């Protein structure tokens, strides 16, 4: 995959594994942040700080059009609220998994939703950040 615009992101959620509710069409912005804690291992004699990777600390920030149809945004998130939900995401949902287009999956804690959000002249949206619960699995094969 070469350079390109981010307009094919795939995002699925669900109560069971694998996540099956495809919310991709409602996504207007998506950020997957992969991070690990920094564990300092600096010791006597070191001339600079030393670190090793600690636990993963990942998150997903997503803007969703708040469609109220069944299996769309509003009802799905209302059902998953206050649970650890399965997720799957990809840079390009239309192509198979590869090193250039890996599929990321795991659990997110659906601890915050905004079922009612918007102003009088625009579409209702939900702008959410989910903390990933546990580690992220990265797959480079299969389909979205």
């Amino acid at each position, binding site marked *: 995959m070469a350079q390109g615009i981010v*307009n094919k992101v795939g995002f699925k959620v669900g109560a069971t594994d694998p996540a099956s509710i495809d919310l*991709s*069409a*409602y*996504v*207007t912005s998506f950020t997957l942040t992969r991070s690990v804690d920094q564990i300092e291992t600096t010791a006597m004699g070191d001339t600079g700080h030393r670190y090793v990777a600690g636990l993963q600390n990942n998150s997903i920030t997503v803007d969703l*059009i708040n469609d*109220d149809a069944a299996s769309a945004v509003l009802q799905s998130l209302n059902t998953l609220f206050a649970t650890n939900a399965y997720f799957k995401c990809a840079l390009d949902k239309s192509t198979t998994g590869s090193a250039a287009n890996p599929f990321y999956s795991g659990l997110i804690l659906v601890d915050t939703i905004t079922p009612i959000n918007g102003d*009088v*002249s625009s*579409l209702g949206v939900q702008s959410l950040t989910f903390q990933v619960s546990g580690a992220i699995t990265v797959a480079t094969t299969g389909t979205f």
Partner: protein
Amino acid sequence: MPTPAITTLRTTLATALVDNTRWQTFAFPPSTVLANSVIVSPDNPYLTPNNNSQISISPFANFKLIITCPLFDNEGNLNGIEDFVVRVFNLLAASSFTYNVSAISAPSVLNAVSGDLLSCEMSVSILTSWS
């Protein structure tokens, strides 16, 4: 909630605005603008997609509703255009559209072939679908 198709939206909107006791309704700008008319005209931008290439996400269609009444005297003109604007707004409210009226222009004199008219533009955005 279902949204009307783009290809039939102008006529659907014009039908919703029919009031034969007050005005003629046009789903397009007529060649000759007459007094006592409500004209559905595309605004700019005509269509506003809400999510890039996603075909299942409803876009907004933007229209100007051009409302005209006869040009008599100042008070009569304004009374007439106010009555029309209120009636158009009521008809929109009674419709099944998901819409937003964002502005109503100041009345102005329109020099039409049929004579001088008083006209007013109501800007309305309607949620529609790619069909």
